[in-house]
């Protein structure tokens, strides 16, 4: 099995210390977290972690089960890049005078879908949201003109093939779990593995 980029989406309760509990699942196994984002989710009171790692599917599946084992985790999913819509947001701070003189700002903005967030006499801050290649390419463009500061956010991702968490959460609320909660991918997968 080869390593590739996987995006792990974790629905959780909003609890202090849970970030640490999830983070140490990776660090204990010496796995580098490429990107980690915490945010609200489509459901009020439910938190959503988006974690990107570069690993084999086997490892990612095991990690997800370890994550799901945490008391305050409702559900963990993992997806390849093809299965998600994802974006990152990057900010670039450049000297206004050079930019205004030497660069055709209009063209630049339209070409990279960039937006000027702040324009001051001394500096300008551009924003690009997109995938890694796009935000990286914009660095290359700006570098010759003196990129003062650069920062990129963690990945946020929407799972293409998901109905969201509203319905699922309802079944979690019941004392006896419904089929919705019980679904577990390895059992269904074994259907394929199983031969008699």
């Amino acid at each position, binding site marked *: 099995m080869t390593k590739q980029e996987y995006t792990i989406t974790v629905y959780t309760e909003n609890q202090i*210390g849970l970030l640490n509990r999830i983070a140490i699942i990776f660090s204990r196994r010496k796995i580098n977290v490429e990107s980690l984002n915490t945010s609200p989710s489509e459901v009020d009171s439910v938190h959503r972690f988006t974690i990107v790692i570069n690993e084999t599917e086997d490892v990612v599946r095991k990690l997800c089960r370890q994550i799901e084992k945490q008391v305050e985790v409702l559900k963990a999913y993992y997806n390849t890049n093809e299965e998600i819509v994802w974006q990152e947001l990057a900010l670039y701070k450049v000297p206004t005078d050079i930019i205004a003189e030497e660069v055709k700002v209009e063209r630049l903005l339209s070409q990279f879908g960039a937006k000027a967030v702040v324009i001051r006499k001394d500096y300008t801050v551009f924003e690009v949201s997109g995938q890694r290649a796009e935000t990286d390419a914009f660095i290359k463009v700006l570098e010759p003109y003196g990129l003062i500061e650069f920062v990129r956010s963690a990945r946020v991702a929407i799972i293409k093939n998901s109905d969201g968490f509203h319905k699922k959460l309802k079944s979690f609320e019941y004392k006896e779990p419904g*089929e919705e909660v019980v679904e577990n991918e390895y059992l269904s997968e074994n259907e394929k593995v199983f031969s008699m």
Partner: protein
Amino acid sequence: MDTLELTKEKKTKAVTESISGSEAVLRAFVAEGVDTIFGYPGGAIMPIYDALYDYHDKLTHILVRHEQGAIHAAQGFARVSGRTGVVFATSGPGATNLVTGLADAMIDSTPVVCITGQVFAHLLGTDAFQETDVINITTPVTKWNYQVTDANEIPHVLAKAFYIAGSGRPGPVLIDITKNAQLQLFDYKGYEKCEHIRSYRPKPIVRKEYIEQAAKLINEAERPFVIFGQGVILGKAEKEFQKFIEKAGVPAAWTIMGMSAIPTDHPLAVGMLGMHGNYGPNLLTNECDVLIAIGMRFDDRVTGRLDKYAKQAKVIHLDIDPAEIDKNVKTTVAVWGDCKETLPLLTELVQQKVYPQWLQKFKNCMEKEEEKCIKAEMNPTSDILTMGEVIDAINELTKGNAVIVTDVGQHQMVACRYAKYNQSKSNITSGGLGTMGYALPAAIGAKYGAPERTVIAIIGDGGIQMTIQELGTIMQFKPDVKIIILNNNFLGMVRQWQELFHKNRYSFVDIQSPDFVQVAKGYSIEGRSVCKREDVKSALAEMLDHKGSFLLEVMVGKENNVFPMVPQGRGVAEIVLSKEEV
């Protein structure tokens, strides 16, 4: 009007009551059926200890000599009783001293609730006296932990703590309570046990289709083999398990943690798995066609080299923890669930069968093991005592009815190889973490968990010195614990490895011991030391007949080795029976 208001006021008074956070902790204990606490007081937990002063009729507090002793005692209590063990410790060093026990309880799935005191909430993060970040220190070694800074949270949080510790795959829970929350008066609205947390699913729904698939595999098998772990004991499914193997006629071997779930002399019991387990179960793991793993987690000490483990077999794995399935060994059919529920369903679907030829193979292996290992251990030709003959004498005297608590090392392996058990929850040992110093405090806890049973701690000369201070606990509270030190004047297991794999370079394994009998006497505990074969049985009888605790030191061979052995990095079928084969 006035009277109406008055009755209204009375009513509200009747439902709520102002109590302190500390009082709420103790009320929670009583509501959860706790009767014994192992603990050690200190500055940050003083309000709870103050409240405890008025609870002496409901709660027995055992003052240990070190917090590690408290948590191991709680573990021993839990393992022998099936109930949740409870611990009190103060902040800072009190709490950090719990860490080894938490790690041990985590890896061996032992239900323990630890309450630690913490500095006042306003001092958190200021490097206050005896402040330490207990929550973050204990996160990797707890099933759940939580810091309480407001007394209003206490009833609810404690209810959660007990529910989480004891349900599903059990484990340790730590609740850190700041001193202000312990002192704080709040409106107590009663205690309600927790039965549901929406993000926590301790009991999976049983999927019949997988049970059907598992049964089909078993029914078509020619050489099925059951390997089982502590899950059978934790699930209180010993009867269900026995019915299953008896109907299916399948030979069964235990992991060190699963030991005693069925009587050791059961006709289908073929022995122990693992590095120092029996020859047959290890060898034949690689000859069975269907491997049925029940409540066990394929620890590396059980599997040896994974790429040489049961590759020929279809694997059925019954476990309550989905994270265990496919973790180390790829399963053909996974039966996720509580084995108390899944086993009867499986038993219903399997055919009544016997496998005389297959069982004979295990017997043949046992004969070979008898010849090459056991004979020398049980009937040595020299005057030097072996650990095995001591265990054998214990078997004879206790008839397999004692709780045996072992420490970690050679004596542990020998005890687990040769001890006989008639009833479940009788083998208490640190299996996963391998914590030296576990046995003495765990035996104390075990005695409180099963006061009617004989509790024998078997400990090495190294391990006893790690928690020897708990003799003080025995002196003060007088739990009747029989302590056997199998003294070989070495850190025996490490020495064995140095002999076998490090060219006899005995690096710091030569450990000196005090006069253990004198030490025991200092703690007002009777003791005796023997080094001759003819004295062993009478000394053991004296120990068992003695009213109260007794320490018996048996001087055994310095350089005896434990065999068979699956050397590290080899497959289970490469198990060796003697030094020459290593």
